[in-house]
């Protein structure tokens, strides 16, 4: 088995094993794993294989909607990782992105379309700033980014809530609605998906995937980031500015996550929210990046997969399957990906057996 084949085969096998684990647990609770498969198929395609209800595209819309923010946090984690940094702070970067987008939408007056763009940019800037802090501390004082990003998640949670409550909330949970037209919501997209919450947030997500791929794979800047990620000493020897690359990598990672916050605020809700606790977009992003192998295409696929798992929860619950099963599947997939070496040796063993049988 070549390295390249293994790169694709391992996540695939891990996903398969994750689903099998989920199925076994469902079977243990006395329910039918088939119901899980049906629910997931329906979430993915809108078709009900039992034939009891008609095709419903709303499911497709909802699953893509769930995928959008975690693709962005996945890109955030993956981008930092390519420079050898572990960004646990996508959660906080996303929250300050949400705050910046909401504040811009509520306080700035401009034509709706311009205001949407401004809000997205503000969210990216806020996320970038939130990412720059651990990046700077790492580059300048060698403070470990994991510690700083985790702490900044809590800071972001409380800071955002304080900011919302100080500058105009309607009640203890939300701000006023954004001005008319200042939204990513789309009548058209909702229409073709039978009233789902699917929105134009898809476009910044798609652009982000492209930008990620282009920077990392095609530019000299991405080459420098990867060199630093693989071997700091060699990068320094070659004359690269290692510290600058570390800060920039965290800035860009933060911008991806911050954009995720804007997509949620402007697309899903259309108002700013006070959060009682973390929503774990950042944690999901770590899983998405890990399973997606820290590459753009991988993040897209694994982001869609985890989005589907999230979106399938209500359907599974209606079949009497506990919604936690989706979480169990997600965690087992991550676990199996982490067992990469074991899977690789299993795969090569299977291949040898197959060859011996010929």
């Amino acid at each position, binding site marked *: 088995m070549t*390295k390249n084949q293994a790169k694709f085969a391992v996540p695939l096998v891990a996903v398969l094993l994750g689903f099998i684990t989920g199925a076994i647990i469902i079977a243990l609770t006395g329910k039918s794993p088939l119901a899980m498969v049906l629910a997931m198929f329906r979430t993915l395609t809108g078709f009900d294989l039992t034939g009891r209800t008609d095709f419903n595209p709303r499911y497709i819309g909802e699953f893509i909607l769930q995928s959008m923010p975690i693709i962005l946090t996945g890109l955030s984690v993956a981008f930092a990782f390519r420079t050898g940094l572990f960004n646990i702070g996508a959660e906080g970067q996303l929250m300050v992105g949400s705050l910046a987008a909401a504040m811009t939408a509520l306080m700035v007056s401009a034509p709706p379309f311009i205001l949407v763009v401004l809000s997205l940019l503000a969210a990216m800037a806020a996320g970038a700033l939130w990412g720059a802090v651990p990046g700077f501390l790492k580059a300048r004082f060698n403070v470990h980014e994991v510690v700083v990003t985790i702490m900044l998640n809590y800071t972001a949670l409380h800071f955002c809530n304080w900011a919302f409550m100080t500058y105009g909330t309607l009640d203890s949970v939300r701000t006023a609605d954004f001005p008319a037209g200042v939204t990513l919501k789309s009548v058209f997209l909702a229409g073709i998906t039978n009233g789902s919450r699917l929105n134009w947030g898809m476009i910044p997500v798609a652009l982000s995937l492209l930008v990620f791929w282009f920077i990392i794979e*095609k*530019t*000299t*800047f991405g*080459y*420098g980031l*990867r*060199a630093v990620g*693989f*071997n700091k*000493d*060699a*990068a*320094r*020897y*070659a*004359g*690269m*500015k290692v510290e600058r690359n570390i800060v920039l990598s965290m800035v860009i990672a933060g911008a991806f996550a911050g954009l995720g916050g804007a997509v949620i605020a402007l697309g899903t809700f259309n108002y700013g929210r006070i959060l009682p606790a973390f929503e774990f977009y950042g944690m999901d992003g770590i899983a998405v990046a890990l399973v997606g192998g820290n590459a753009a295409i991988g993040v897209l696929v694994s982001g869609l997969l985890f989005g589907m798992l999230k979106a399938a929860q209500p359907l599974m619950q209606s079949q009497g399957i506990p919604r936690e099963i989706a979480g169990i599947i997600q965690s087992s997939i991550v676990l199996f990906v982490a067992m990469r070496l074991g899977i690789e040796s299993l795969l090569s063993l299977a291949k040898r057996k197959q060859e011996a049988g010929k």
Partner: protein
Amino acid sequence: MALIIEMLKIVKGFPGIKANDDVTLEVEEGSIHALLGENGAGKSTLMSILFGLYQPDSGLIRIRGKDVRITDPNEANKLGIGMVHQHFKLVHNFTVTENIVLGLEPVKGVVLDMKVAEERVRALTAKYGLEVDPRSKIEDIGVGMQQRVEILKMLYRDAEILIFDEPTAVLTPQEIHELIGIMKRLVAEGKTIILITHKLKEIKAVADVCTVLRRGRLIGSVKVADTSEARMAEMMVGRQVNFSVEKEPAVPGEVLLEIDGLKVRNAKGLLGIKDLSLRLRRGEILGLCGIDGNGQTDLVYALTGLAKIEAGQVLFKGRDITRASIKHRVDMGLGHIPEDRHKHGLVLDFRMDENLVVHSYGTAPFSRWGVLDYNAIRRNAEKLIEEFDVRSGEGPATPTRSLSGGNQQKAIVAREIDRSPEVFVIAQPTRGLDVGAIEYIHKRIVEERDKGKAILLVSLELDEILDLSDRIAVIYEGEIVGEVIASETNENELGLMMAGSTRKAVRA
């Protein structure tokens, strides 16, 4: 004497290559048997088969006359086979004893009984003359000592057959000398040693028999006492090897690099270089020799920008580069073949073509407007691979990590020479390479000199310094204690200066 190991007609293939093709190795009990071959000749594969890491595709292994199947290293251990790997496998924050007993810890009830272990270790060190303090932590002892711990690990497990995988690659001349003594002692106590190496001198010094492999095939086994070094080198490479470097007398030009009153702190924060001054001229090779750890690394780091200069100044063609960034120095025409190819020289997880442009990826033709041109990068790699004979499985796309050490080094040399720097700092250019590769790299270094480059050669190998240099500077405790003309000196004189006992100055 009886044969203890018989590996008969061993064949082992990997995708695209036959690593061992009908190789037979017969080792007598109580002897030191050298296994000689170029990088990638199949020595390591053969030993990995003996140690149970690989299974042969065909062939037979007999230990003490009995047919065996060695399925894994545990099986090898049971047969009394132990291996000292080139890269030690030690836990750095454990003590010597803890490392030795790892996996076989003696227990009293449920607690470790380190006393018993320590006594056994002490007994072993005394018996084989392997002086090492059982209570030291690995991180506090030198490389030579760490190697002794690896040897003790095998002896603790009652190994009778000891495989040494290029044991001297990481050692200083003094440590090599000590190791040779240890090996002789081990054999005197009835052990059998297989020595994997490509250093002919060491084979001459210790081995009884030498088996030579070339490109996976057995070339022959010879008695070391009856065979000259030149003959063994020829068997290994397949042609006559030139040991002495052919070069015309140097024609030194103007001074390109001026170092004055340099002070540099080392990794421990102490002054590794104290008040060092040197001149390097166009068209000459200045060899810097000294015992390891006398400031060579600090000097190289300071010149290339990897370490901060505390005091003094460095002039490059008259321009002050004391505080210049690494990038600035690279752009001005300073070349650097680093001592540690894995730490500084290469990004091992990059492909080969990517590694060959680490300095120049930001300029045309490799990129335009910040966008990489992978076609140009690949063509550059193809050109250098061809010119420098870098052997790699998949050409430019080969993962750098999968290249053999010698080919990795060739790739670095190719990259640096191709940049055509005017001042070239070369550290340990041939460490761990076979004679064929050494001959080639030496030839290229002399060619660069003849093109009018100024070369500072830093090496721990005295032979290399004597062969290549035009002028030799000796460094001792961070100071230059002697400068001599290479053709007018010898090992003895240099040795005395390296030990700090005499000083001599010939100003060029």
